[in-house]
């Protein structure tokens, strides 16, 4: 009899691929994070991470960079997304595309451009490492914040705003009680798009002559030193942070959809 495949068998290669190259690498770094160079079980990598002032300082500095970048991106992107979503221009999609195009240009080349301009303005980049890092990250990640905010704000029903105004709400009340809560899913996905890269993208720091380490730089330096065990521990810490962010944002979104179901 001729062999006939069914449609579900088509998932076999992809499932195998995910197990081998997505799940297995994570298990391997878990193993490396909790063993020493000779392959014996140890928690010294973990205790080493949390007892060393260097690594804790790095964690704090990356959190500071990530929070500042996310905040600045949000403050710049929210008005942009709102204006775009509410504008009645016919060529709105062209305008949106203009804000998205930078995403398609290689980020190192764009950083080179930014670096040249900042050098022209400031003279010596090394004078303001923190400021320049925030500018560089904002420049790099801004489109990733604008897009989800725009999508969320496009779904906003204008009649809700009108109803709020008719019932006597002031502009600030409408914003705080109607627009902001309804755009929360966009804000959340914007934050998840920006926060983690800001903690890890150490190329931006290198290019801006910021010699302070962030979490990504630690992995880079352990990689250069062939220290797989310590590097894996940093990766595990980052994975834990990702897990918390995803879990928190899912909580937000589930609450939303439950509410929608009740209505």
């Amino acid at each position, binding site marked *: 009899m001729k062999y006939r495949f069914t449609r579900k068998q*088509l998932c076999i290669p*992809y499932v195998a691929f995910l197990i081998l*190259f997505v799940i297995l*690498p994570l298990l*391997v770094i878990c193993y490396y994070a909790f063993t020493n160079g000779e392959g014996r079980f140890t928690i010294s990598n973990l205790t080493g991470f949390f007892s060393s002032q260097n690594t804790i300082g790095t964690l704090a500095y990356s959190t500071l960079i990530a929070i500042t970048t996310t905040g600045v991106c949000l403050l710049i992107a929210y008005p942009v997304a709102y204006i775009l979503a509410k504008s009645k221009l016919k060529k709105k999609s062209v305008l949106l595309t203009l804000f998205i195009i930078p995403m398609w240009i290689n*980020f190192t080349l764009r950083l080179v451009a930014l670096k040249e301009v900042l050098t022209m303005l400031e003279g010596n980049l090394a004078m303001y490492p923190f400021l320049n890092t925030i500018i560089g990250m904002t420049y790099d990640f801004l489109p990733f914040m604008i897009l989800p905010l725009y999508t969320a704000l496009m779904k906003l029903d204008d009649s809700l705003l009108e109803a709020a105004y008719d019932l006597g709400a002031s502009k600030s009340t409408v914003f705080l009680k109607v627009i902001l809560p309804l755009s929360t899913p966009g804000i959340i996905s914007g934050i998840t798009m920006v926060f983690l890269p800001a903690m890890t993208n*150490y190329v931006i720091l290198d290019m801006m002559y910021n010699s302070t380490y962030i979490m990504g730089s630690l992995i880079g330096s352990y990689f250069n030193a062939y220290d797989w065990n310590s590097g894996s521990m940093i990766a595990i810490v980052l994975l834990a942070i990702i897990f918390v962010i995803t879990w928190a944002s899912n909580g937000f979104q589930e609450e939303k959809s439950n509410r929608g179901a009740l209505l």
Partner: protein
Amino acid sequence: MRKVLSSAWLGIVLLFMYLPILLLCIYSFTDSSTIGAKGSISFQNYRTLFTSSEMLSILGGTLLLAFGCAIISTMLGTVGAIGTYYSKKGLKQFVTTANQIPVVNADVVTGFSICVLLIVVLGIDKNTFIPLVIGQVVLASPFVYLSVLPKLKQMDHHLYEAALDLGASARIALIKIVIPQIIPGIISGFLLSVTLSLDDYFITTYTKPATFDTISTYVVNATRGSHTEIKTAFWALSTVIFIVIICVVLLGNHLSNQKTSEENDANDI
């Protein structure tokens, strides 16, 4: 007043996003090696870009890698999405979750973990390019999966059954019935894969052969040194990429406008 303020805000943000690129474009046509310095018009940067063998091999390598990985990712992600869509709930749940890992994970972590598994544990030689290709496919195929899935949900499923009833083999039905219906998702997944690969620095650094460089890894290494000639040749490269992207966007816009106007015409009738 409000209108003026909103336009001004959009203008300022656009200026912030485009001023560096535009200045770089202008200065790429001069012999100046710093932006803001005086220089005379020169095409030296473009000559270096298109004649230096180092430049050409980086460009060729980057493009070959991007398109090669995009083809593999697109096939893997598309077939995976079709298969998963018709699978049992448990398996579907597994794929959805595992697929999300590379999407939300930091590229540094993805690159590092693949490097540890393939190069340190399994001892695969970096020079075979196998770790590099696998790394980039891990990065891109989940996005293909995510862009194909919504098209599968919109698809008319009776057509496939009808084709089978009329005697088509599963393979023929797949190629002639399913693929044409989800082709927009496949194309956007492919384009996404190409951009992801072109933009990637971290996975490439952790998995590439020592002597191989993509645009990203080369630019990062070059900015640490001070090779002026190569540095300004990259300005020319940025200009070329910028112009190519603008053309692609304009073309895409034009095509989709044409399509919507055709649809409108059809609706009018």
